[in-house]
């Protein structure tokens, strides 16, 4: 589904990603761990193609197409969707409007909003005065309407209270087809700080990112437990041993 080959990325003249290699297969969910400022968000934003994230070297291949230089909307059309950690407020643009845009004119947005108890926000300006949890729900609803094949989630659990974590988890499971066990087609890449989301959504692989490089790959739960116990410092040590 997604292959990233030796990706080097600059943000405002500063080298942030330093030779990332990553492969996500069809139906797989991967988690990305790492400290603040390690480059996790940069990786997601670069995959989506946002301006300000300058690819100096390397390739991003999605469904066999080199998308490294494609505009954002063409990547979206190919089947990549993203949930932002802090999306902008769009004054005068209603949630129902953006759900329409995401669904490309389809009418599933309202139905889904109702099923997740979010329909009273349909006539509100997108993200205007939304709480942390409401922003996440709004982002996930947009993605559900968009129905991407690869979903990029930037800290979907941050700012969400315990009660709502369950709903957020359900929405992500639906996005990533966790109800299907054979022939699952949807893939995901999830940035998580707290790892809470792993209690709700199973992941196939975990990666640890430090200083713009991916250090460790493996079972996401084991990696997360290791980080909890020994901290990121141990990852660096461990990686050094491997060299």
């Amino acid at each position, binding site marked *: 589904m997604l292959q990233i080959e030796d990706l080097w990325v600059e943000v405002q003249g500063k080298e942030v990603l330093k030779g990332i290699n990553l492969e996500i297969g069809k139906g797989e969910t991967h988690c990305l761990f790492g400290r603040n400022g390690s480059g996790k968000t940069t990786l997601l934003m670069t995959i989506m193609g946002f301006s300000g994230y300058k690819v100096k070297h390397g390739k991003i291949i999605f469904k066999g197409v080199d998308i490294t230089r494609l505009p954002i*909307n063409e990547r979206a059309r190919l089947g990549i969707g993203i949930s932002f950690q802090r999306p902008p407020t*769009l004054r005068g643009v209603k949630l129902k409007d953006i759900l329409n845009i995401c669904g490309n004119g389809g009418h599933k947005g309202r139905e889904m909003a109702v099923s997740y108890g979010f329909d009273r926000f349909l006539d509100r300006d997108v993200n205007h005065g939304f709480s942390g949890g409401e922003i996440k729900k709004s982002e996930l609803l947009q993605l559900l309407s968009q129905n991407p094949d690869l979903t990029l989630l930037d800290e979907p659990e941050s700012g969400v209270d315990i009660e709502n974590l369950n709903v957020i988890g359900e929405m992500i499971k639906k996005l990533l087809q966790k109800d299907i066990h054979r022939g699952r087609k949807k893939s995901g890449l999830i940035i998580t700080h707290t790892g809470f989301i792993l209690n709700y959504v199973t992941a196939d692989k975990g990666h640890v990112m430090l200083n713009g490089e991916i250090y460790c790959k493996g079972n996401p739960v084991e990696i997360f437990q290791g980080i909890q116990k020994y901290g990121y410092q141990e990852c660096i040590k461990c990686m050094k041993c491997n060299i």
Partner: protein
Amino acid sequence: MDINDKELLSKFTPASNVDAVEGIDKLQDEEIKKLQQTGIQLNEEERIGSFIQTNCNVVHCDCSVSGVELLPVKDALKKYDGLSDYWWRLVSKDKDIFTEETERNLDNGYFIRAKAGEKAVYPLQTCLYIRNDNVAQKVHNIIIAEEGSELHVITGCATHPHLTSGLHIGISEFYVKKGAKLTFTMVHNWGESIYVRPRTGVLVEEDGLFMSNYISLKGVKSIQTYPVAQLKGRGAVARFNSVVVAPSGALLDIGSKVILDAPETRAEIISRTVSNGGTIIARGHLVGKARGVKAHLECQGMILADKGIIHAIPELEAHLDDVDMSHEAAVGKIAQEEIEYLMARGLSEEEAVATIVRGFLDVKIEGLPPELEEELQNAVSECQQGGI
């Protein structure tokens, strides 16, 4: 080329010197279409009445609701003995050369009075239309919302689609009495070489509400408008909303002032402006003079084309400590972040810009005909062509 006020006045022929049409049935199709785009429903659907003046002639003046009195202002002056309590009370007749000229050579205008307790369901529409080239139209309007009444007036001001130049001077004095509610929606749809000089005063008494919606989306040479509302009774409220697009070549000097002169009065001035190459001066002035007043001012401007200028001038003036007054002003181009957010949802860059501009200009004004909604959409796509 700049032209001073005196030259401006002498440049145009008084409307009283030119012939006008006898009735609205004589208007051409393209004129009718333009009036519809200006918010006028010629079939009077969902309107309680209409006043239509072309040049200096009142061609239509009829209201179906007995609780609302509608007259050409010259008739009202005769009927009510010069309207001495209302005539030149809120706008000074020697304010400037335009008020002086209107006092000397009045063409006409409308007089509207909602009787005490009358609550009109649908709007009353008025239309001031300049039909001939190089004409100066001078009108003086009075609206009185008597105690406990409710009224919505939609005014469409326009010029003939092929007009090259003209001047419109409009004096307006609005009286909102105790507990009354007056909504005044004004749509300007002029031509590219038209000069517009409205002079407006508003008085709001105890628990009265005055709400103004102002829309100008099309080309115009210059508009200078600065209504002043005085809140004279406890709990009076004034709200001004403006949605303005300045195409290349237009100078729009728009704004409003509210004097909160009684306890617990409230005011809000909100302007959304888009420069598509033209110049906009967005003014707002709130004056707090009594205890417990609350007022907010918001000037939001978007520049979409090179050479566009937006000059926001928000002013707050407090005369005592027990006031709550604030302002917020922001001017700039559309945030790239917002465009890319929508692109990530599948829109092209052009579509994303259009969606954001449409949202920015989105105003919910009740009773506007679909033609005007369409005009808003057209203005957005014109903005886009200028912007990208």
